[in-house]
């Protein structure tokens, strides 16, 4: 079922790229419309899956990726509709499309583990997915900042200079996305810890719960990610790490977040395997 939104996201991505190259406003509106339709269809898919398992589908990794893509698309659409700035679409859509391929190819089954049947768990995953969506936006904003920064600094005003929003706007949007993402990351981690404490006495034999410690690769990388973003938030305010440094940090942080979200989740983790 995740193939339908994927198809629409591919169309939106191509349209955003055409808009970026040609800078024709009507193509831009078409791109936004395609993405809106894609998000709507995706909402429907997630709604169906929610009704099926009685909670938002995110215990299975494939479905969690789908939910993440959905949140990212909605966050991007919010950003675009509030700033009236479409140039970022061409950078966001590849992320959206690549990730959406996973749930489209491996639908996965949502396994109803009684351990997960807790509002704490829902809040934990929802906060983290939303944090990752913010970081994805921040990472893309950071990359575009660096592209344009380089052009202005080297005095070769070229392709990106004429198409991207001003450095200041990119920096402010990046700062907001990082701060919001960091808040949700913090919330997600705290809620996760609280939930583990509560769940352990209920299911003392559960291997997942027993593996939840700092030496678990997923939890370790998550803490590393948290440390990077905490530094980004603090350094901006105290050390004047704005602009290119902040952009670089947000791209690095996003790389770690994605590392945790995909390869570690699929291959190395010993905790967080609820499928």
């Amino acid at each position, binding site marked *: 079922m995740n193939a339908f939104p994927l198809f629409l996201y591919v169309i939106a991505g191509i349209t955003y790229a055409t808009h970026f190259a040609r800078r024709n406003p009507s193509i831009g509106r078409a791109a936004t419309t395609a993405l809106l339709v894609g998000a709507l269809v995706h909402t429907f898919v997630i709604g169906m899956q929610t009704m099926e398992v009685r909670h938002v589908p995110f215990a299975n990794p494939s479905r969690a990726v789908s939910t993440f893509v959905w949140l990212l698309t909605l966050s991007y659409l919010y950003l675009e509709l509030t700033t009236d700035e479409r140039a970022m679409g061409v950078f966001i859509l590849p992320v959206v499309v690549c990730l959406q391929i996973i749930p489209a190819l491996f639908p996965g089954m949502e396994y109803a583990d009684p351990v997960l049947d807790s509002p704490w768990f829902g809040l934990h995953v929802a906060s983290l997915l939303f944090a990752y969506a913010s970081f994805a936006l921040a990472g893309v904003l950071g990359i575009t900042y660096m592209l344009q920064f380089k052009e*202005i600094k080297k005095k070769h005003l070229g392709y990106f200079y004429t198409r991207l929003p001003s450095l200041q706007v990119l920096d402010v949007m990046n700062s907001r996305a990082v701060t919001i993402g960091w808040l949700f990351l913090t919330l997600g981690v705290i809620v996760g810890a609280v939930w583990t404490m509560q769940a352990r006495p209920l299911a003392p034999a559960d291997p997942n719960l027993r593996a939840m410690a700092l030496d678990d690769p997923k939890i370790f990388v998550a803490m590393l990610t948290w440390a990077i973003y905490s530094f980004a938030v603090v350094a901006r305010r105290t050390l*004047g790490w704005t602009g290119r440094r902040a952009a670089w940090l947000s791209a690095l942080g996003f790389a770690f977040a994605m590392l945790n979200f995909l390869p570690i989740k699929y291959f190395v983790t010993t905790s967080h395997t609820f499928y």
Partner: protein
Amino acid sequence: MHFFLLGVSHRTAPVDLRERLDFSSRDLGAAVQSVTSRPSMTESVVLSTCNRSEIYVASSDPARARDELVSFLSGYHHVPAHVFQPHVFALEDSAAVAHLFRVAAGLDSLVVGEPQILGQVKDAFQSAADQHCVGPVLRHVFRWSFGVGKRVRTETALGEGAVSVSFAAVSLARKIFGNLQGRRVLVVGAGEISTLTAQHLRSQGVGAIVIASRTYAHAEALAADAGGVAVPWEGMLHELSSADIVVTATGSPRPIITRAQLEAAQAHRRGSPLFIIDVAVPRDVEASVGDIEQVFLYNVDDLQSIVQENLSRRAAEVERAESIVNEEVARFMAWRRSRGAVPTVVALRQRFETIRKSELQRLDGKLGPLTPDARARVDEVTRLIVEKLLVEPTEQLKALPDEETQAAYTEAVARLFRLHEHDADQTAPASPEPTPERPRDR
């Protein structure tokens, strides 16, 4: 009715002559009224900028309009006709339409693609409209030209990129800071380019302009000119830590801002970006200052090369813009021709309607027993038959490819249906000229 244009522009006349033929905007109203009062012209718009003085008119007799416009120009500006006649150009109908569209698109400007011209065309049209000197001919062609100007601007990059050093500096500042409102500008040394740049920045709504010069009096004079505040020379380095944009233009033989000084200032800046525009030769700012994080340093050569790049990019867009203009001229002329067929179409419809009515009347006796409802239906059916018969000829007449063919066809239609005799009291429908805007108050 013809669309006719006569004028001088930077392509045909030297600047001193253009100055002598310039209409200042205060006189425009009187000028268009004076033109319109001449017998051969019914509508007029005067477009006067520093690069052109052009008079657009609607005239039934372009040859006569030409003579009258030359004598008008001569009398109005007190310039003998023989002085400017060799520099005057005159165009009519599709050539004049093409010229107006090219002007509105910025293709005929001295700096190709400059953005002000479309506004100037609109203003010229509006001030003529305010004097009631604009009728259907000029109204349609000018309104169409606004659309062409807008289309060229959105579909091509003709107007993109600054083409003067000071505008290049301002557009860079906008790309770094986004909105310039509330930004603090420090001008060091008073010179022509720094004054110009400060004025452009002021018009972009920067928050404050602070001016430092070795001679305090110079700083004060520039401050009064650009609407800023003068500070003593010693305060310059202190200002560096709070400024967003710095413009330097002193005659100093050695750099006045060094890397060490700026690094010290950066400590107080909390990573906020600094844009330095060094227009002095020899340079006022050490080149290595540009290596500092969050400092963007541009000297006059950098800006000059941006201007050159933008100019060549604009030149590359000219062809696309020209093809848009040609396409729009063709569309406009086709539309005008389709309007030219309107009188014939109207006469044809009237003729058919008259026949239908008279036949219904003739049959009135035989229709006697019908109920009013059935009668209405008969009326409806006959009306629909006439409508259907006329749809195709109407479309074909409107879509004819050129005026000659159109004249031949309308003449043929008029003869076949004897439109001349039956509608002798109405405007002649088969006129060979396109008469798109003829009022038809029937």
